[in-house]
């Protein structure tokens, strides 16, 4: 009986952990369903896993999601979308394919904001080659205005490894928060490795 109570209590505590924000300390951390490791230099808040739209995604924030957000997508397989979408919706975010060109990848991310995130204005500011997870990847910089009329800036770094998509994105309000988090984000990108 004691063992049974212990199991139930453990499960309950585990459930609580999945329902609340957790502190991420500096140092190596496994992210996005443990598909990648990265090494933040400061503290971040990890969103509860129950709040994530897909199992391949994980989101962190330092000052609250209204101000900044780092999104990790790890090992997204062929045929899946970056967002959860209704099957019969007439406006769909494209699904990922490993044969996507850089334009396909950037327009997929753009669609995620325009369709999934209801961005009213979305402007590409730069598309550059980058090494990410030891692969040739794409660094995509943009800004957008959301439904709340707040202007955001963003950087998505993505690469295809073993036929799966790996993506890290920093979004922050164009006033202060994007610039404040960018150096650490770039360091995290450089530290990222496939597990």
């Amino acid at each position: 009986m004691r063992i049974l109570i212990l199991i139930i209590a453990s499960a309950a505590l585990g459930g609580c952990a999945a329902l609340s924000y957790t502190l991420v300390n500096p140092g190596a951390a496994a992210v996005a369903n443990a598909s990648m490791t990265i090494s933040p230099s400061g503290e971040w808040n990890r969103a509860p896993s129950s709040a994530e739209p897909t199992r391949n995604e994980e989101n962190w924030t330092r000052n609250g999601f209204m101000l900044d957000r780092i999104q990790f997508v790890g090992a997204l397989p062929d045929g899946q979308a970056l967002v959860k979408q209704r099957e019969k919706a007439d406006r769909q975010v494209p699904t990922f394919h490993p044969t996507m060109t850089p334009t396909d990848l950037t327009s997929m991310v753009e669609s995620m904001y325009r369709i999934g995130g209801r961005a009213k204005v979305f402007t590409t500011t730069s598309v550059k080659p980058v090494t990410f997870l030891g692969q040739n990847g794409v660094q995509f910089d943009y800004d957008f205005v959301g439904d709340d009329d707040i202007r955001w800036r963003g950087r998505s770094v993505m690469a295809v490894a073993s036929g799966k998509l790996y993506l890290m994105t920093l979004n922050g309000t164009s006033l202060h928060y994007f610039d404040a988090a960018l150096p650490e984000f770039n360091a995290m990108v450089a530290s990222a490795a496939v597990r």
Partner: protein
Amino acid sequence: VRAPVRWAWSAASRWLCACTLSALTHIPVALSQTEASTQLAVDIAPQPLSRALENLAHQSGLEVVYLSDVIQDQTTQGAPAGTAARDALAQLLDGTGLTFRYLNARMVRILTGEAPLETVVVIGTRLMPARPAVAAPTDAERLRLTAFDEEIEQRIARGQLLYGRAELDSYLQRIAARLLSADGSEAGCVGVRVIKGADASAFALSNGSIYVTTALLESLGSEAEVAAVLGHEITHYANDHVLRGLREEDRRTLVARSASMLAWLAVGVAEKHAGLASPHTTAQVPDQVLRMWARASMTGYSENLEREADDRSVRRLIAAGYDASGAVTALRHLSEQVPPGRFVNPPPLYASHPQLARRLSSYRDLLAGRLATAVAAGGELRRSEYAAQIAGLHLDQVAILLQAGDFDRADTTLDAVIGADSARAEFLRGEIARRRDPGAPAGSARALAAYERAVRLPDPPAEAFREQGYLYWRGGDFAAARAAFASYLARAPQAADAPMVRSYLEQPPSGSSSTKAGAAP
């Protein structure tokens, strides 16, 4: 024909003496010659008569109007392809006990068989009725209206929604001025502007700003149709519909509050009676109820105000010398754009009205009834002038739909563009194929074929070369890819993605062993 009927000859001569007209039969015979030559392209199958008449209107452009009680559950045997519109209509009505009569060259009225060919007595009076008396806004109401207008206009500005083609805005402004002259209103009291939009919509603010979306303009076929839409929105402005809507909303909120209070009190009384009363049970109005009412009030004007706007817009249309069939055709075109059951977002706009079919029926009633004689004089449609003004808009609309991820409608819109063989049209065709399923072989092949056609035509978009380059590279044709990338960079050296494209050119001449299809070289 029901007499007396209110009408006018024109805007310049709004007053008439009493006069008589012979039955309408003589006017239409000659006018109908043009329509009689229009033939059905496809069969109209046996079906309910109302649907068959929709089909006839769709195929021939002949608008059919009738009082709502004339057509109910009759069915028709249909009409075969190749039949002239006039004969087809006769065949559709065969055996239904109904007849028809041309009101003007483009509009025909359905009558019950026993309707007499009577002499119509027309009492001349104002076509445009006086505006309803509305109490001037209080200071508090004025503040709310101003705040609402400013909020909407700021959102348009922040969302960079203005289409920004000054000559198109001016053209629409001239149409509005022509409509406003119908009742002597000042031409500049409204300002019309076009905004980018994937859905067909139009709306008026209390400050006189009228906005129409590119999707709406793209779906209409003549100046008379857009005049009908503008006339509708002008009425919303001129007849203080925003203010009246605001007052209705306040009344509804009050009713909601009262109803909610009564409900809560009833619950309280019941609980007390059952001995369940808690110290926390109070007669509060849940915020949710108020929000729900506020939202409901924004999903459009009340049916009365919409009816008033429809009525005045048709009168304005006729008085301004436009063919009144434009009003029916506009709504028919818009209802064809909106899939059944789909509620377009954002809501408080012309095409998003959930009762398009009911409004279409209301227009038909109006034209077959009170305004039947007024439309006999016909009027202008100005199809070619309208087509010239929106010539460049169709492809822009395809790009807007593409950006919105609505590939089916982008495809349909592109297919409907007359002479869509320009480099930009081919590039957009390629973009639809590529974005529909990025990376998939079949879509990529179609996209590449379209890009190849685009770059062979005059003035191709630089992006067509870039996409061609990526697809060649992925297919292993590195020499062709390099040539395409070089063409792209020559045309767009400062493009945001120039560094990415340049990185491909910096690879060894044979490509790269690490380059499988995908993200980067």
